[in-house]
Structure formats: structure tokens, C-alpha cells
């Protein structure tokens, strides 16, 4: 409904690009003049040491932060800044580094909340809940049940998520993002704090999401092994600057990357 000049992006074409983006908080520069793109259908990893500006980059992409300089092009529409609502309506979903769920609500309600934008906006029917609104609710519920099935979280359907262990919370959060049927899925350290088995599961889900739904994924991850397995292309940030961009193998061999990871003095 937004941005009438949006174009349909085919697989392999650029879905989103950031150009010369800089972001600072007060005097601190979090991102300096970074450009890169995300192609439709790929799994794109953003890596870098702590404080490299990875999460800030995601926040710029989904509109939580507004860069002072640079531009974001999403589905062919150029924007000076993205707003969270624009990002969500445009088809960008995300998860958070430390899990941001609706803790007092059940798994089901959390994932249903992900359907917010897909639902009819007719406020009046919503108030009454009956008639078309009820029909609609059933359709969305079916979609949500498919996601619950996909992520194998049937057993926690009715559990308030605040009570779940961390690994499951991350899965619910992924489910909520999937419920938006996003074109671009931003995952901020999806495997952080998980044990090996949970990590393997999460990896499988990420690959399945990419395969099954064809969702483009941009993810931040620390575990290099995971990144090398999952990602088609990797962009490396260090101190807010881009220091490398390419396939996992290229990046692994890059001298600047090796230096950054081994902590060579600048």
C-alpha cells in the first residue's frame, strides 16, 4: 500500500542497498560511510568484532536509527531514512540480539502479533470481532499454526513466553518474524547463548526458511563456523567501517579481516 513506485524484485537482484551510510550518537561514530547490498534470495551475513556497528546497521535498516548521512534503497525506493512502520509494511522483519518478546503473552499470541500488518484494518469489525473479522482471525490462525508446526513449538503454544528457556524464546521470536511473511528477515545473533544442539536446530530453521519460503536473510553472527556454513556472502565491519565484502572463502582469506579478528593494533 505504501510507496507506489516500489518495483518487484526478482531473485538475484538487489533487494536492499545502503549507500555511504554514517551514523553517530553524540560524538561517537557508530557507522562510517558504509555501503553494501543484499540480493533477493540470499543469506547475507554481517560479521565483525564487538562494537563494530553490526547491530546499529540492522537498526538503520529497519528504521530504529536514522543515519545522518547516506541513503537506503529498498525494493527500488530510495529513502533518506527508514521508519520502523515503513520497514514493517515494506516486508522487513527482524529478531533482536537479546530477544524482544511480549513476555506476558503466550507463544500463540506473540506469533499472532506478527500478523498485525496482514490483518484487515477495519477497526469497526475488529471492535465487534465477529463477521468478517472472525473469519479473518481463523485464516491467520491457520498461518500461525503452520509456523508453529514448522518450528516445532507445538508444546509451548499456550505458555507465556516469559517462562520459556532462552533457546525457545529465540525460536518464538523467529516465529513472530516469520508470521510477517517478510521479504527480508534480519536476524541479530540468532544463535547467541545457545547450546550446540539448539544452534544446530536454529541453523536448520534458517536454511529451511531460506529454502522453503525463499526469504532473503541478513544475519549477524559471531560463530564463524556457522557463518561459513550458512551465508552466501559476508560483509565485515570493524570500528564502524566496512573492511571486507565477499563470499565466505574470500572473506576468510582477507588480510584486513584476519587482522581485525586477531586484534592487530590500528
Amino acid at each position, binding site marked *: 500500500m505504501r510507496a507506489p513506485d516500489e518495483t518487484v524484485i526478482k531473485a538475484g537482484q538487489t533487494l536492499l542497498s545502503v549507500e555511504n551510510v554514517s551514523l553517530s550518537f553524540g560524538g561517537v561514530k557508530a557507522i562510517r560511510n558504509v555501503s553494501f547490498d543484499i540480493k533477493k534470495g540470499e543469506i547475507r551475513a554481517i560479521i565483525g568484532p564487538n562494537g563494530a556497528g553490526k547491530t546499529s546497521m540492522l537498526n538503520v535498516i529497519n528504521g530504529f536509527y536514522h543515519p545522518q548521512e547516506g541513503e537506503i534503497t529498498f525494493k527500488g525506493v530510495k529513502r533518506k531514512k527508514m521508519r520502523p512502520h515503513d520497514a514493517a509494511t515494506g516486508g522487513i522483519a527482524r529478531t533482536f540480539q537479546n530477544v524482544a518478546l511480549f513476555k506476558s503473552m503466550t507463544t500463540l499470541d506473540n506469533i499472532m502479533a506478527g500478523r498485525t500488518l496482514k490483518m484487515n484494518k477495519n477497526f469497526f469489525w475488529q471492535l465487534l470481532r465477529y463477521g468478517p473479522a472472525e473469519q479473518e482471525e481463523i485464516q491467520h490462525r491457520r498461518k500461525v499454526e503452520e509456523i508453529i508446526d514448522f518450528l516445532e513449538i507445538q508444546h509451548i503454544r*499456550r505458555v507465556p513466553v516469559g517462562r520459556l528457556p532462552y533457546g525457545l524464546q529465540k525460536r518464538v521470536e523467529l516465529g513472530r518474524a516469520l508470521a510477517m511473511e517478510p521479504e527480508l528477515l534480519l536476524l541479530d545473533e540468532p544463535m547467541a547463548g545457545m547450546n550446540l544442539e539448539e544452534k544446530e536446530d536454529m541453523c536448520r530453521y534458517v536454511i529451511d526458511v531460506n529454502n522453503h519460503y525463499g526469504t532473503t536473510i541478513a544475519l549477524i553472527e559471531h560463530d564463524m563456523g556457522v557463518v561459513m556454513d550458512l551465508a552466501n556472502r559476508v560483509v565485515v565491519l570493524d570500528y564502524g567501517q566496512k573492511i571486507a565484502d565477499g563470499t565466505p572463502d574470500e572473506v576468510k582469506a582477507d588480510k584486513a579481516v584476519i587482522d581485525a579478528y586477531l586484534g592487530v593494533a590500528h
Partner: protein
Amino acid sequence: MAQDAVDKAVDTFPKFLLVNARERGHRPAIREKDLGIWQTWTWAQVKEEVKALALGLKELGVERGDKVAIIGSNKPRLYWSMCATQSIGGIPVPVYQDAVADEMAFVLAHAGAKVAIVENQEQVDKVLSISDRLPSITHVIYDEPRGLRDYDHTRLKWLNEIQDIGRKAMETKYSGDAWEKMIAEGKGSDIAVILYTSGTTGNPKGVMLTYESVVVSSRNANAFDNLTEKEEVIAYLPMAWVGDHIFSYAQSYVAGYTVNCPESPETIIEDRREIGTSYAFAPPRVYENLLTLTMVRMEDAGRVKRAMFHYFLGHARKWGEKILNKEPVPILARLIYWLGDILVYGPMKNRYGFTNVRVAYTAGEAIGPEIFRYYRSLGINLKQLYGQTEASVYITAQPDGEIYADTVGKPSPDVEIKIEQNGEVLFRSPGVFAGYYKDPDKTAETKTPDGWVKSGDAGFFDPKTGHLKIIDRAKDVGKLKDGTLFAPKYIENKLKFYPNIKEAVALGDKRDYVTVMLNIDLVSVGSWAERNNVIYGSYQELAAHPRVYEMLAEHVDEVNRSLSEEGPMAGAQIKRFLILHKELDADDGELTRTQKVRRGFIAERYGPLAEGLYNGAKEVDITTELTFEDGRKGNISARVRIQDMKTHPPAAAPMDKAA
């Protein structure tokens, strides 16, 4: 009489399916929770599904006598696969889905399976990974297509496609009642299923059961507990296990009751609650887990709720079983129990999904008496049974109103039981297996020419109740010099039932009498010591304390008394005991890592003590090497006292209860 004739004619499960589709076609046969909703298939619908699948399999080349492996968790289509295979004369071979690839390879190769019907990608991967070892397999059929889209589909097929093939064949090649004719060709004496049992040693054995065996067992079981088409059961135990095969397939087909397949292994409790099963079957660990879960929840509950829970539970412990057994109970106790049912027992049973349960069985291994009594005190008719794959499950079961925590019940209908000289339980019934597949030697070893099957378990009939008690594996049961049966684990378990006794080691095989070495439980005895002003400085000191000896002597005496009432066990009463000066420890090799005592090793390590127990010594000095927690080694010396015990004369069995 006429009914009998009909019963005789319906002698295979596909025939039962036809009967059910005809007589109760509108009733639910099976349900599955999928996408949060219970999907139901009636018997009439199941017949159509099975028919399509059966003819599809036929088109794939499955012939009479061919084996079809079925691998996966409890799903309607996998149960249908079983019946579909049987309907065209094939033999289903359900395989444990969590078996590792090697085990699975052995079973599939040994059975010579032609087709494998599997649940999902995980199982497809497993079968494909071993396919080079399985020349007999022509096709792999899967139920759940997720993730399999890009696989090579030359030998891989989706179950729905097979059904489509079957439906097409229905119109051409197998039109009319062709399928029904195929079913009619099946005979009661045919092999119905091959169930592989994992022995403790060696390769799994394929137990062949005929339709006759399984049908008779199912019929008897249904009659024993008055099961009707109205029962609801939940299928969640492995399909390859004989228990599930009988409960969730055979008995359901015979009685026409409804089987419910849970959404996922994690949702069983919730699913059971929604269904409200009326007939349940589970190994003890399931009941244990439920109870643990309850206790954990209660710890988190508010003070009032917790107090209420404990009060009413205490009341139930005192009166619940009596009420369930219809014994006379004071009116006030009844009233409080009724109140408890509203406030505590009812909600709890609802949580467990046992609100509507008429009969629940525990089987597979011994259940803790506390756990057993807990469920019974809530008013759940939990009973024990003793069964084996080789018997189509039923060997003994507890009739209503005759429930004991430590017996496995009376012989099931049509089952004969005898106890061998060495204590081994032998059984004979129409339900016994036809033989081990491709293993006549093993068959001959287990099954005598006149039809008796060696169970491998030792047991005896309890003179007090007339029920069978299983004491141990037969090979672990020894004999005293005078020939009396000596079941060390049985005696040890009786002793360990006392909280003060942590471990017990019974000696007696090829000796004159039975003696035991005990370990006290430091927590329990320690708190007793504190309450009774017994001063002690160390474990060793406490263990040697005269008053501790006194206390344990009482326990041993009680055990002796209970043994004296148990017929064949009466001769194996404990003559002497001692309390070990150190705790048995896995680090010292005295226990296995699973905390089981290593009897032989202990007898050797504490040689002087063992000797002392049999040479009449009052005290024995001993020095033992031990390993400290940090790995250092040291020595511990002690003078260990040996206590003599009185034995009780064997009690005569009351005549009215004798079997």
C-alpha cells in the same frame, strides 16, 4: 454360538477393518492433532484410505509374504500402512524410529524388507544412508514431504502418490471387491507382524506373531477390562514395541475403539488432557515423570495451595486406595476425600488427562510402590501387568480390586504359567509367538516343543495373594547350598525400600545362608542422629554406632518377616548382616556408573568381611583403599561388627487366596 462363528471368521486385522467400517462406520477410528486441531477419520474413512494405500503398494510390487518396514512416530498413516500391508498378504515390520543407522540396517536387512514406509525427512535420510546395505529394498515411501522436494524420486515416493496410484488401480485392475477378496485370502495362522526385540546382548530377534495369537490376546484383554468401542487411547509409545502394537492397533481394531495420535512428543500430556483417555498404558517412567512434574509445580505454588495439596494428598494416601478397592471407610474420611476430589484430585487427574480413565496399566519394569500408590490414592485405577513380545504382551495382569504394589497379577485369560526349579517363569497360551524370524536355534532355545516359552525372568506365586511376583532376571538368580532360591536383587530392593538404607549387597549364592552388607543413608540416618542426640564424627563412626545397628536390625527383621510370608523366598532370610565402614562408590568401582551395585567385585574387595559373615566372627578388622574426591588415594581401616539375626518360620498360605 452364532457369535462365536462370526468371531472365528474374523481372524485378521484387515477383516476387522471391514467389520468396523460396516458396523460402526461413522464412529471415530483414529485422530491426529495437526496444526492445533484434532483431525478425525471414521472407520469408513480409514477403510478407504487403507484400501487406496494397499492397492498402491500392490502396484508397487508388494506380494504376499513380502516384508514392509514401518518407521516413524505414531501417525495415522503409519498405522494404516500396517493394515494396508496386511490386507495384501504382506508382513509389516515396525522399526524403532530412534534406532541408529546401524541397528536399523541390521533389522531391515534381516527382515529383508522390500519397501520402507517412513515418517519424514529424518527417517528418509537414515534409510538412504544405509541403502547400499539393503539390496532388498525397492522403494522408500514417506508421509511428511517437508524438506524432501529436491530429493531424487526414482525410488522415493510420497505416500499420497501411492494412494493415488491405488485409487487409479481401484477403477481398472482391482475394481469391484478385488481388495476384499485379497483380504479374504488371509488366514489366522499367517504371520501378522514381525516385532524386533533388542536383547541385552547380541542382535535383535524378530518375533513372529500370527494373527491368531494377536487376535486372541486382544480379545481376551478387551474382555478382561470390559473395553468397548467407546474407549479413547493415546498412541505415543514406539510403534515397534509390542505394547503399542497391541494397545493402539490390535485391540483398537478388535474392539473398534479410537486411537489418538499426539501432535508432537512434547505435547503428549496436553493432548491426553484434551482427549481424556479412558484406557491407558505406559511404562513406569511416564508415571514417574508426571509425578515429578506435579511436585515441581507444587514447589512453585503459593503457600495456601501447597498446604491444601499436601493435606489432601495425605488424606488420599490414607484412604484413597481403600475407597478405590471398595473397602469399608468411615463416613467422615469419605467426605473429606470427596472434598479433596473437588479441590485437588479432580484438577490433578484432569491435568494428567486421567479424568475419564477407567483402567491404566503400568508395565515393562517394576514401578516404585510410592508412585504406584500415589496414582491409586487419587482414584485412578492403575494396575500392573507382566508381558512379553513373545506372549503378544499378556502373561499376567491384576484383576480389578486385587491390586498390590509388588505383584504383577494373575495369569491372563487362556495363559498357563509354571515355575521352573531355578525359579524361571514359563508360560503357554494361544498368544505365544510362532518363532524368531530366520533363527530356529534361538526359537528352540526359548520355546519347548509342547509350547512352553521361557520368559527369562525368575518369579514365584505369592502365597498370600496368589499373584505372580517377578524377582529378577532368571540368570541372576542363584541358589543356596540347600537348593533354596536366592534372588539377591529382590532382597536388596526390599532393604533399600527403607530410607535409612542406601545400598545393600546380598551374598548367598552357593553358600549356607544369606547375609547382607549395608550402607546407611547419611542424610536420613544423620538427621535421625541429630534428633536422638547421637554424636558422631564421621560416616564411619555413625555406621558403627550400636544404636544404628539396632535400628537397621529392625529393618532387616522386617524384611525377614516379609520373606517368611513369601513361600519360596522363606528359606532365603537374612542370617547375618554388617554395616560397611565406607560408602560404596562408583569411583572405587563398587557401583556401576548407573549406580548399580557390583556384587562380585564387592565380595572380593571386602573379602575379609565376606569371610567373617560366614565364619561366625563377631568383629572383623579391615583396611580398604579408597579414592578421594580429588582423585588422591588413601587407606581406611576399621573394625566392623557383624550382627546375627533371627529368622521367622515360613507362614502358611491362606487357602482362600491361593491360586
